[in-house]
């Protein structure tokens, strides 16, 4: 489960800019190594919460690049708000991390 994540959340004018980096192979299931298909392994769901409330609920496929990076924006916000981001992949593996808005 050592798939690190990084979150950066900043207050930019009248919205909060949230960026997240997730380490994940995002295998498509179509790549071959020595003639053998590498099984698909990718993040299916990403959830972003601010102060415990879900703001973005995403479904993703194998066509998101390896080590996915997403940017989201949330209206308003204040320094110190808690941003929590979690993901679940097609093998049931999960990870989540929280960060404070700077």
């Amino acid at each position, binding site marked *: 489960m050592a798939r690190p994540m990084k979150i950066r959340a900043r207050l930019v004018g009248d*919205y909060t800019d949230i960026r997240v980096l997730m380490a994940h192979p*995002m*295998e*498509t299931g*179509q*790549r071959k190594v020595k003639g053998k298909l590498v099984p698909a392994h990718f993040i*299916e*769901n990403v959830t*972003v919460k*601010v102060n415990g*409330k*879900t*703001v*973005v*609920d*995403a*479904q*993703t*496929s*194998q*066509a*998101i*690049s*390896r080590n*996915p*990076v*997403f*940017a*989201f*924006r*949330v*209206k*308003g916000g204040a320094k110190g708000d808690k941003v929590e981001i979690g993901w*679940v992949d*097609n093998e*049931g593996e999960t990870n989540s991390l929280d960060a404070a808005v700077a």
Partner: protein
Amino acid sequence: MDEGRRVILRSAGATGVLVAALAAGLLKPERALAANWDKSAFRQKTAEDALKSIGAENAEKSSQLMLDVPEIAENGAVVPVEISSHIPGTTSIAVVIDKNPFPLISRFNFMNGALPYVKLNAKMGQSSNVRVIAEANGKHYVAMRSVKVTIGGCGG
């Protein structure tokens, strides 16, 4: 003799039903787990079917829906896609890459103050149109751009 055969068949049939019911029951938890991922939509193989599966086959073109993609992507494994909807009441955004093996690549639902904005990196197997579909007040809107890919993204 004939009657006996009937009885056996009948009981076999009943057992079959029971087994099927058990199997359905056993499968339930697994299905509940995967309910958050719209497999049927993500596994469509053409852009048209993918749009249909999310109910957006009659999406209206909108200049209020901004899609920022490079005209030429040197590396199909990482194509930056930035989407911002200025359509009031936008609650969801979907991304479709026409010529990818599975065109629907992601769907985002926005709530509780999230702006209908997302930036992501996508894989593109070859040059293709990229469409984004926004849903607002039960209607679908679409914006499209073409991206030329010089190196495909399927090799990883």
